[in-house]
């Protein structure tokens, strides 16, 4: 099986990095011999790698006594987070950050209290669910209905012409 350009191109960097198996490397080499376009791509990767040059000497070297200090701290139980300790040092930017954080915390607390107060005003609490007058018991309502029926019957009886039979009571 021969490689197409589509097969070959993604393998070019791995090939140049020496990461292809011998079989695949052989197939790619064969394709590169025949394909000038892929050969140019390989050349491009090679050229690009020349931009990555290691410094002759470290720009930021470890300070003297670094290893001894780190070992001492490790055995003293320091578990790290050096950068956080760095942040805690008083500095202009640190003070500003602290002010902003404090102001934000206060604002959040005020908003929380206000929200709770507003909610208390708008929503009825358990105590406010009581009606102004307690609901009448069922018996009272039934008695009232009977009274109304009686009055109605009485009104009909008085307005009925003489000799007409009164309606039977249920």
């Amino acid at each position: 099986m021969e490689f197409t350009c589509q097969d070959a191109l993604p393998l070019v960097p791995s090939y140049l990095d020496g990461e292809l198996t011998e079989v695949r490397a052989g197939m790619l080499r064969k394709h590169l011999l025949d394909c000038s376009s892929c050969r140019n791509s390989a050349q491009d990767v090679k050229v690009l790698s020349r931009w990555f040059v290691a410094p002759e000497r470290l720009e930021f070297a470890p300070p003297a006594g670094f290893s001894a200090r780190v070992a001492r701290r490790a055995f003293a139980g320091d578990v790290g987070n050096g950068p956080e300790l760095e942040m805690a040092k008083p500095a202009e930017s640190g003070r500003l950050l602290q002010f902003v954080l404090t102001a934000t915390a206060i604002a959040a607390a005020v908003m929380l209290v206000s929200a709770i107060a507003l909610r208390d005003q708008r929503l009825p609490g358990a105590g406010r669910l009581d009606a102004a007058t307690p609901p009448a018991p069922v018996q009272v309502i039934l008695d009232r209905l009977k009274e109304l029926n009686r009055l109605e019957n009485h009104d009909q009886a008085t307005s009925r012409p003489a000799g007409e039979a009164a309606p039977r009571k249920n």
Partner: protein
Amino acid sequence: MGAFAMQPMPKEDVSLVAETLSGNQLSFQLLVERYQDRMFGLVRHYTRNPVEIEDIVQDTFLKAFTRLSSFQQQSSFYTWLCRIAINTALDFHKRHGRNPVQAVEDPELALAADRVGRGGTQVQAPDARLERAEIQKITQLVLEELPEIFRTVLVLREFEDMAYQDMADVLGISIGTVESRLFRARARFKDKLLQLHPEFGEG
């Protein structure tokens, strides 16, 4: 397979780790001394502030010490340290609200990188008249413009000369992902280099 993964761990490292675990402070100091330069070299790709570099490297070694008993000797001590150092550097940026540019490896991105990788303007090799330091400065600035995942694979491959298997171990990804990420990273690097320095383009 990678150069680091294939080789057995140097005897000295194994011994120093064991001695450290049995309470020998000097052995740990020797381990720090052995790798401190490479750690400073690695971390400088994540910040250019010397104080921050020192803090991150120190933090890396302190974290390594607390996890030393969990160190699996299948990978090299250096590969293991790299993983801690990169995570520490990224955590440091997060804690300072400086989230590095994130990239999601979606198909669109892959296609865009592929287009860049396939052709267009070719990049020139660095001019012979450029000082080594100048080349480094240009490269560093271009790298800083790249999403973190692309910057990291380029740093591990091009500066640390790490094998794909070791990169996969450090980053916790498959070799296939290392390959594709590196491919895109190189395309992005070339694109950004030409964008910032069109004078290095040809064709």
